[in-house]
């Protein structure tokens, strides 16, 4: 692998032991994937340090104590507890205290601590051709497909990339790998974020690790729908990038013909219905929580929820959770949007979500924290991603519907299905 003088200096330890560790790890990664050299990155979305996993917060504390600092703009991924409003989720205080230690470590390292799966709604908006690293697969697919930035699906090493400002040039950092592999023909009329997570999920279920070219949509999806589309296919198919001509830089409206000759994948309404049905495993009158905001809601979505909930009351015995990032929560508070939402009895929660909080049964927290996941009858959701991981991580039934019908469900106490 060809290394710059600056890379070699880091390997020699001129900036200290912790930067040497980061660069050594990145070189090993690059050699594993035949990278020719390293690129400068302009942004990193990094691991939060998760209190639900043994020794994981300590991993971030150790880096901070040894002098790790972010060399490029960086944001933090989702955490395991709402660090401001944790009582609303009944999280154990011991867990919250540990989670806050990760926040302190990130403050030391200079990471923009937004603790979210949607850092773009908090202002982290990498532009066309910005090389970056991301620990969150939903961020990877949004930044590649909507913003035209260049990101692989990373794990922990997004932290090392942020510390050094470098990343090995392989995968989606190379032009040759940013071309469509399949042509999706949408023969349905999805509308709203729930439908778009389901459309993405249906696509990803049939094309693992593909780069689908999306054709046939009746209109340009809005930003929330584009976010939902990518998240759905990242969840079911490990998709890191889709190409929607006219949206995905540098593909223009005229590029829909690029897919001629590629394997064709028609998606019809029955494919969307099948995903909704697959994630309606709970009984229609037996659920504990209705959840909106996967991925974490944008300001526009908060406006939508405020309109839907204005003057309504959540049915006693039902909890309505709205998850967003702390930046959007503050914007919603300042704009008066939290008033109608909270007056309805709904809870606005940041930094975490049902699958990321103390509900997860597949996590492995320090037993000394005394974390006991509650037994839940079912969770109503408006996102195929949340539904999939509730099934796999919380091990409880789900009921999947649209955002509007999920709000109706919370108000009436009876599940309102999509169809």
């Amino acid at each position: 692998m060809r290394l710059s003088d600056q890379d070699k200096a880091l390997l020699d330890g001129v900036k200290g032991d912790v930067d040497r560790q980061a660069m050594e790890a990145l070189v090993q990664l690059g050699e594993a994937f035949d990278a020719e050299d390293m690129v400068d990155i302009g942004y990193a979305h990094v691991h939060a340090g998760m209190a639900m996993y043994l020794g994981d917060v300590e991993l971030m504390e150790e880096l901070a104590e040894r002098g790790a600092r972010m060399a490029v703009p960086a944001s933090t991924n989702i955490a395991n507890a709402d660090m401001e409003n944790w009582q609303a989720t009944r999280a154990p205080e011991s867990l919250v205290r540990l989670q806050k230690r990760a926040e302190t470590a990130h403050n030391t390292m200079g990471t923009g601590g937004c603790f979210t799966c949607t850092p773009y709604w908090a202002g982290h908006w990498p532009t066309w051709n910005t090389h970056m690293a991301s620990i969150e697969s939903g961020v990877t697919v949004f930044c590649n497909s909507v913003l035209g930035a260049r990101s692989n699906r990373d794990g922990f090493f997004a932290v090392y990339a942020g510390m050094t400002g470098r990343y090995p040039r392989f995968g989606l950092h190379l032009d040759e790998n940013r071309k469509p592999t399949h042509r999706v023909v949408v023969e349905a009329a999805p509308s709203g974020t729930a439908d778009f997570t389901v459309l993405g999920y249906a696509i990803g279920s049939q094309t693992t690790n593909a780069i689908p070219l999306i054709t046939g949509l009746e209109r340009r999806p809005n930003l929330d729908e584009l976010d939902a589309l990518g998240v759905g296919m990242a969840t079911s198919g490990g998709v890191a990038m889709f190409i929607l001509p006219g949206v995905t830089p540098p593909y223009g409206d005229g590029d829909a013909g690029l897919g001629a000759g590629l394997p064709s994948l028609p998606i019809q309404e029955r494919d969307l219905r099948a995903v909704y049905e697959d994630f309606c495993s709970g009984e229609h009158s037996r659920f504990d929580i209705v959840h909106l905001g996967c991925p974490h809601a944008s300001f526009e979505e908060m406006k939508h929820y405020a309109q839907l909930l204005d003057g309504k009351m959540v049915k006693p015995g039902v909890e309505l959770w709205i998850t967003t990032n702390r930046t959007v929560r503050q914007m919603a508070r300042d704009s008066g949007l939290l008033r109608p939402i909270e007056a309805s009895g709904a809870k606005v929660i940041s930094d975490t979500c049902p699958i990321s909080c103390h509900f997860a049964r597949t996590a492995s927290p320090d037993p000394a924290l005394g974390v006991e996941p509650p037994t839940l009858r079912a969770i109503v959701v408006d996102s195929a991603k949340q539904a999939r991981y509730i099934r796999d991580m919380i091990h409880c039934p789900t009921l999947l519907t649209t955002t509007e019908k999920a709000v109706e469900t919370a108000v009436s106490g009876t599940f309102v299905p999509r169809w």
Partner: protein
Amino acid sequence: MSDKTTFEGRGIVKGNVTGPALVSRTPFSFLGDVDIRTGDVIGELSDLRGRNIAGRVLVVPATRGSAGAWRFLYQLKQHGTHPVAVITGELPDPSVVQGAILSGVPIISGLADRIGNTVTDATLLCVDGDSGVVTVIEAQ
């Protein structure tokens, strides 16, 4: 024992360890196939279901993808239930490689078929992730 059998693959993650083999014919997911606290394989799609990966040289044809795989491999390490090395056929995905580097678990790829056809469970293997060489120390 003389004329030790060796296999040469591609060293992906550095490190030198010795441990008993555990051979699988099905792709393995670190997120979902294994109970972190015990190292027991619980995934229904794995032919190792009911076995334990702790302390073993895990021989698998491929790792199944998930961006969260690194965290689960690191959690196995934190709980002391991790495999001491991983030998794969296909190149593992970046998240697994990142988790293995973080956890100090050497990986060699391009070998699972050849090794899987030769060694059996509990064969003692020496894995050199730097050179990509696997040496059979003691056949069972």
